[in-house]
């Protein structure tokens, strides 16, 4: 193992940010972006940070003591890296857009309605779906930590857990939307849901125009993760290649 974390540290201190290690400590202030730090994501492949070494040591201690089964860790990682993610939520939204009875069930009691599609469990035990309309836009935040509806959206992105979002969403949500590059009409009311207990909120965005007759799968391709948090909008039909071609 190459121990070059000190060099990485020295190389990558950023003048505007506090000196932190190569594991992305400053990500707590700012979500890492390719624009600012084009190489940060790749260092750990070739050089081991202090945190990488610490986690390896911890896993080996806990395995040796018989507290954890490394195979269980692999299953957990596989679950959240490739099985549970915003595609789940997109299917729920697409169903709500195409099936009025399902939409009613979803808005009345989201947890069983989401369960109908097979999505349930940890960090989604008590889900509430909130619907956007021309008059009302919903946005979800957790100012105290990182509460997020895992069964429908997967693990939260860095920006959702970051200090800027947690600080700004409840005071200046229009400023947050500007950070994401869009704005809403001034007459649209914004309601921000701060997830301070174990209720998990999930936004049902408005169905884009020009999608009449689209199938659920075609519609699901328009539903972005951010549109289900309330920091984005669904894609327009012209943003999805060939999606408008009816099967």
């Amino acid at each position, binding site marked *: 193992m190459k121990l070059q974390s000190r060099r990485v540290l020295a190389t990558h201190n950023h003048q505007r940010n506090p000196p932190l290690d190569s594991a992305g400590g400053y990500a707590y202030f700012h979500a890492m972006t390719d624009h600012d730090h084009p190489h940060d994501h790749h260092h750990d492949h070739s050089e081991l940070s202090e945190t990488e070494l610490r986690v*390896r040591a911890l896993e080996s201690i806990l395995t040796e003591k018989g507290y954890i089964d490394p195979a269980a860790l692999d299953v957990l990682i596989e679950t959240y890296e490739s099985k549970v993610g915003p595609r789940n939520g997109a299917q729920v939204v697409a169903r709500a857009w195409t099936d009025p009875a399902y939409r009613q069930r979803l808005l009345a009691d989201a947890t069983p309605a989401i369960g109908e599609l097979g999505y349930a469990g940890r960090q989604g035990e008590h889900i509430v779906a909130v619907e956007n309309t021309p008059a009302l836009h919903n946005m979800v935040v957790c100012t*105290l930590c990182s509460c997020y509806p895992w069964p429908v959206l997967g693990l939260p992105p860095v920006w959702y857990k*970051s200090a800027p979002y947690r600080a700004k969403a409840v005071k200046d949500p229009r400023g947050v939307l500007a950070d994401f590059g869009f704005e809403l009409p001034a007459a649209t009311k914004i309601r921000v849901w701060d997830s301070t207990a174990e209720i998990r909120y999930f936004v049902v965005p408005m169905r884009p125009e020009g999608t009449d007759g689209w199938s659920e799968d075609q519609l699901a391709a328009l539903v972005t993760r951010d549109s289900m948090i309330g920091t984005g909008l669904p894609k327009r039909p012209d943003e999805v290649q060939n999606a408008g071609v009816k099967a």
Partner: protein
Amino acid sequence: MDGAHDMGGVSGFGPVRPEPDEPVFHAPWERRALAITLAMARPGGWNIDTSRFARENRPPADYLGMSYYQIWLAGLERLMQERNLVEADELAAGKALHPPKPVANILTAGDVAAMLHRGGPTERDVTKPALFAVGDRVRARTMHPPTHTRLPRYVRGHLGRIEAVRGVHVFPDSNAHGGGEDPQWLYTVSFNGAELWSDAPDPLLEVTVDAFEPYLEHA
């Protein structure tokens, strides 16, 4: 506790920076940190409220200086040391130096799907009537416990309205500190932006929090 984790309305952090095509994890160690944390809850025997307090209860500079999964790691190490599952000298040495402490149960690969599917529901049976109903005017209490709470600072002392009654749920303020679940009615309470922030940029802003009954009083 009034800690650095309680960020609602704090100025100076700068803009939100979305990351296009963000990966689920940004380094291999983040995968293992997430999985170790989820897996250790079973032999460790702690609950989510205890875990949250272990993460947030640290000097603000430390909290703000760590990445998200570094905070998880710091919280996990604290929980394990408090229960003598792992000792400080072992963490320093990076290897086991003491015999394991007997644990009731560990998470095996075959258990993972069922454990995640079951999750940890917090709703409990109703044993007393709710003090508030939808539409009631309430005030969030001014309270500053040094212990875990889920009433964010930015709503304390402010007038709101009961938006929804969410049933009876495990009370984090008690559950985080070994006081048992002490289930309490949970409400979604809405606040006008102008009530919370005299200088709110958006006059139509409405913010809701989910507040346990002991956090509220009639207004």
